[in-house]
């Protein structure tokens, strides 16, 4: 495999990983706050904090890994996106910073406080919205490039239907992924009240997810015809995504196999995310950057791949240990150990 394809595959897999773990985290923030507002926080918050506390830092590293990796494999992207994304990137950073630190303050520091919880819940929705604009910008039409000067056109972004469709999809996906995961976690913890509440939320959250992804397709057709045509070439991936979604909803609806249902949700997003990614290639930024025009040199590319493999050999056993201790350890999940 050429180095640029290997590189983008690695990065896309990690971005997918971030999408899944971060969505759980972002959504959980929202549910924690919402649960407090409607007065059932005693039900929901132990579930959330038992899962989130040990893993929140790990979530953040997925993101760091992606943006460090993309600068490594595709240094040109640093130049274009770096110049263009100053404002949206900074806003996303500030939100991420507030979220991460306030989570820690509230959880390890002092007793729970409503302002912490509000910050935690609100940023859970704003961050995916801010981060998703990167996908929008990558479709082209939001930058003007003259030689070495790259100018971002925020007004274009703000008044673009496509941009809003993507934001909608991002937020609803976060809520859907998170609720299905928490449903599964609550089922394992045999916490029936939390389970019931989360289960009905999962069922509801599925609807906007599907509607907004339809919106995205329609808006993409108007915004970037070339990309839209290429998504049709991999229509089957989106088809599989829809099939997985149906299975997930069916299982949750029948109160069965919440674990399998969650795996189906992960597959749903796997197919959609990779369908989107594959059809986006070879462009990293329409129409300025392609894989081959922005890739790093061969020597560095190889070094990065080698270190990546070595790194994985180190990380995978550690991650397995983490999951076995906290996700698949029934005693811990039920809150019997601390």
């Amino acid at each position, binding site marked *: 495999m050429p180095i640029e394809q290997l590189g983008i595959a690695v990065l896309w897999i990690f971005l997918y990983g971030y999408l899944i773990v971060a969505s759980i985290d972002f959504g959980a923030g929202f549910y924690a706050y919402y649960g407090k507002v409607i007065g059932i926080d005693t039900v929901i918050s132990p579930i959330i904090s038992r899962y989130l506390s040990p893993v929140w830092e790990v979530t953040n590293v997925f993101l760091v890994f992606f943006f460090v990796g993309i600068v490594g494999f595709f240094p040109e992207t640093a130049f274009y996106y770096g110049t263009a994304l100053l404002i949206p990137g900074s806003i996303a950073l500030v939100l991420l910073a507030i979220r991460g630190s306030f989570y820690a303050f509230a959880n390890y520091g002092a007793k729970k406080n409503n302002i912490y919880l509000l910050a935690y819940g609100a940023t859970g929705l704003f961050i995916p919205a801010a981060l998703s604009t990167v996908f929008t910008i990558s479709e082209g039409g939001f930058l003007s490039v003259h030689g070495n000067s790259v100018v971002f056109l925020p007004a274009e972004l703000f008044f673009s239907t496509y941009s809003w469709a993507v934001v909608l999809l991002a937020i609803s996906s976060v809520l859907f992924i998170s609720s299905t995961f928490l449903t599964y976690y609550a089922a394992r913890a045999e916490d029936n009240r939390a389970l019931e509440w989360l289960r009905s939320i999962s069922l509801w959250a599925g609807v906007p997810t599907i509607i907004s992804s339809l919106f995205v397709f329609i808006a993409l057709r108007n915004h970037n015809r070339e990309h839209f045509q290429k998504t049709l070439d991999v229509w089957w991936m989106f088809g599989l995504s829809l099939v997985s979604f149906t299975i997930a909803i069916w299982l949750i609806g029948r109160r069965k196999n919440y674990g399998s249902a969650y795996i189906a949700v992960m597959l749903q997003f796997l197919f959609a995310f990779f369908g989107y990614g594959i059809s986006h290639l070879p462009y990293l930024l329409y129409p300025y950057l392609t894989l081959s025009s922005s890739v790093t040199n061969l020597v560095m590319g190889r070094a*990065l791949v080698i270190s990546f493999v070595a790194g994985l050999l180190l990380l995978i056993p550690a991650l397995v240990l983490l999951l076995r201790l906290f996700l698949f350890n029934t005693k811990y999940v039920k809150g019997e150990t601390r």
Partner: protein
Amino acid sequence: MNSLEWSRGLTEMTLAFHIVFATVGVGIPIFISLAEWIGIRKKDPHYLLMARRWTRGFIITVAVGVVTGTCIGLQLSLLWPAFMRFAGNVISLPLFLETFAFFFEAIFLGIYMYTWNRFSNPYLHWLLTIPIIIGSSASALFITMVNAFMNTPQGFTLQNGQLTHLDPLSAMFNPATPSKVAHVLSSAYLTAAFLLAMIAAFSMLRGRENDYYKKSIRLNMIAGVILAAATIWIGDLSAIFLAEEQPEKLAAAEWHFDTGNRVPLFIGGRLNPDTLEITGALKIPSALSLLAKHNPNGTVIGLNDFPKEEWPPLYVHYLFDGMVGLGFYLFGTSLLFIFMTRIKRWNAYNRWIIGAILAGGPFSMLAIELGWFYAEVGRQPWILRGYMRVSEAATTNPDVGITFWLFAALYLLLGLVSLLVLIRLFRKKPAEMELEERRIIL
């Protein structure tokens, strides 16, 4: 102010803030590990409690370290896109490796925090501190390699704007790497020792007399005296490195203009910017030659060998002197304390010594800041010494000013709240109370 100045300002602010937490993040795990190990070995619950309490505070600083680190990581691309385009080709390997180090640390920290009583063999829990130490020190190692590369770039050839002959390993192991990495690590450990001692000293000054505090101070000061000596020694190695490879940085710090031998050392003083005359400084004959070459006759290159537009700002002299002065303060304080504990009739825990140890906490952090500002300002005007100026690397986006204020507000908020949370954490539950709760009476 233009984009360049705002970008510099924002970078300075973010780094100045991040290094506080990064330094704590690198240093504290060693002491948590040490305390837990001593506690298990001696079956002394005081040390075990120390490990627990330090971990609790540590988590807070880690959180801020992680989020500000994420900020600086992304800001490098946002503010210095031209630099990162270049660096991406040559020095992205250690940056990439650093993320693995974070990963590793994050995973084991998560496990460590939530498994205090889950293993029947206490050494198993203690073993978890080892990957945390490796992870955090490795992140310092890798990021410092990048920084070293900016000072002494190598591992590539630049021909008509084209990069050829790339060698990522040689870029990582550039001449600045050994002294820089060693000094950064030893100073981070040293700072951690003094910060932890500071907490105990604070409680003692408020009249708490429990053995817990004395043990904490003793542990940290024994480590502190060793680490301070190591830091001073490695700092000297850094100066020798500079004299060899980056003479303009050393010359700027020492206000040394004319190349020659038997060069004197000036401490403090004032410089007339037009005549370059030094007044009011403490002058030690031949000392600079001795320091930089370990030979009173050694030749030290002066600033006049460089074109004036490539001189770093000369105020770095004060930064350097400040760092060195504080280094000796830390060494002296810890040495005095150790000395006093050896002599039976003297009370090593008297108010003056405890006060001096208390001051060592903020002082050590100040030394870190001074050291970094010296190292980075001393590299000016280069972002990549000899290849790219800071002015060529900055973003062309006109809105950096807005982001500067955005982040200023963020850091203010994070700084205040984390301080508040930390104070509450240690004040609301003093060690005595926890000792009693856990029924530890000695």
